[in-house]
């Protein structure tokens, strides 16, 4: 079980990193080219697609970045309690809040999926022939992955609460 989780973890991290590097690299490249085109080439190229592309990339960066933030436990939390209390209360409260987070994200993911399905029936396209719903499908996908991340965290927390900590580390 643990091995499988760890393997999935490594794969997920690699996939996120690759996606983020490609997205950010493309964004920098396209944005700079737009400036060169406008300032130095007097708009020799028609780049309406570039505006569209950069805006879509922001959405994708936000979504993939959010999945990565969830894996690294970097989402913004207020979290007063763990500064004040410690011990089993904190451990169990983490289980509860992460279960809650998983449920909320699953709900958002479902709503986003409904929206994307509807968009599909509208048939909007960008870059002349790419269906818009396909590009927006990153939103439900990301929320499913985030929800899954929170569930994995809950699982790990429970293993830690019940598992004999020291013995496990030794083995």
């Amino acid at each position: 079980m643990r091995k499988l989780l760890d393997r999935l973890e490594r794969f997920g991290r690699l996939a996120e990193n690759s996606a983020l590097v490609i997205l950010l690299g493309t964004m920098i490249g396209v944005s700079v080219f737009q400036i060169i085109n406008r300032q130095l080439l007097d708009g020799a190229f028609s780049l309406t697609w570039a505006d569209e592309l950069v805006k879509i990339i922001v959405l994708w960066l936000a979504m993939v970045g959010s999945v990565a933030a969830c894996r690294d436990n970097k989402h913004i939390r207020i979290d007063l309690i763990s500064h004040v209390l410690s011990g089993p209360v904190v451990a169990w409260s983490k289980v509860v809040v992460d279960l809650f987070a998983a449920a909320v994200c699953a709900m958002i993911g479902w709503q986003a999926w409904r929206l994307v399905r509807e968009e599909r029936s509208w048939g909007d396209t960008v870059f002349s022939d790419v269906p818009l719903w396909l590009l927006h499908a990153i939103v439900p996908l990301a929320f499913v992955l985030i929800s899954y991340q929170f569930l994995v965290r809950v699982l790990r927390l429970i293993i830690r609460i019940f598992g004999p900590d020291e013995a496990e580390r030794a083995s």
Partner: protein
Amino acid sequence: MIFVSLILIVLAVFGAPLFTIIATSAMVGFQSNDTELMTIALELLSISQMPVLTAIPLFTFAGYLLSESNAPGRLVRLTSAMFGWMPGGLALVCLAACAFFTAFTGASGVTIIALGAILYPALKQDGYGDRFNLGLVTSSGSLGLLFAPSLPIILYGVVAKVSIDDLFRAGILPGLVMLFMLGGYSIWVNRENRKPLSSFSWREVRDALREAIWELPLPFVVLGGIYSGFFAVSEAAAITALYVFIAEVLIYREITLRDLPRIVRESMVLVGAILMILGVSLASTYYMIDAEVPQKLLAFVAELVSSPTSFLVLLLLFLLVLGAILDIFSAIVLVVPLILPIADGFGVDQVHLGIVFLAAMQLGYLTPPVGLNLFIASYRFNKPIMHVYSATFPFLIILMLSVILITFLPELSLLFVSGD
């Protein structure tokens, strides 16, 4: 409804991710006034309809690259070569370098880690007291928030639909007021601590300049480009990202290509966290405007206060409490849409409101219980958190005075803003 809010507050206090709390309150709101629940997804998608937002990932990436390279060391060397000869020299160096670095890296706490590690031991070596150093470095970590191209300013502009260029110009004087007041305090505290002043050396200035030669054009291109209106904010961000990449990775080679995926990830994790909060807050704002919450708030506030001045007093008190609980990014996206109509009702300028809001939230970095800088400094310098609280307290008071000045002298913010 009150019951649900209570549960959400308890969950937030126990550490549920803030975006899930906001999303739930939005969805419960939609449910209660028969709005289609899909609206939350629709609002999330609007992240891709705000062209200015491209500036956020680009500036964040550039900031992380800079803080991972030796740029902080070069910046400190150059500032000390230029200002180190003055009384209280190194303290002033600390303030100036931190403000500059924070403006470029977007106030995410990296300043304390990148510059504090250099400045804290250097201050000690120069004979400044430990408490003073700790307080100075901790409070410098969020200085510079009001200078271009800081991320909170950009985010405020996006949320409030105010010209970001105007905000950048409006932040200059208030930011300088903060710098000068902290600088004056630093000199005054160390008036007994007379050391032989280090002499000014042209040779050192020249060497420091030569060392930083590839980074020098950056502030001129970016700040010059933005303030003159030659570049739009998102264009300046793209230039910065590319330029910093070329300088640090290809020319100085202080960051290897192998490090790059990690740095991209770390910076985009922050971007993901901020934009996620923005996305769900758009949804909750949609609900609140639908439910006429701002109008009800305005009516409520109008009963309490009657003049713009008393409104500002109330606002300031509210922001101080808010800043102690919420980080600056969440506070902007959640609260600004609610207070904008109220401020309008009292005739407070939206640009001035933005500067007041950001200046007050800057104090939030230093106020217990959740001041980000306090925790970063405690962790980074291995000091008990209570010790950091008390060392930072005098600086907090000075900053608070500066915020009061900034609030009640709107001319400070509006002098350079072209009225329209």
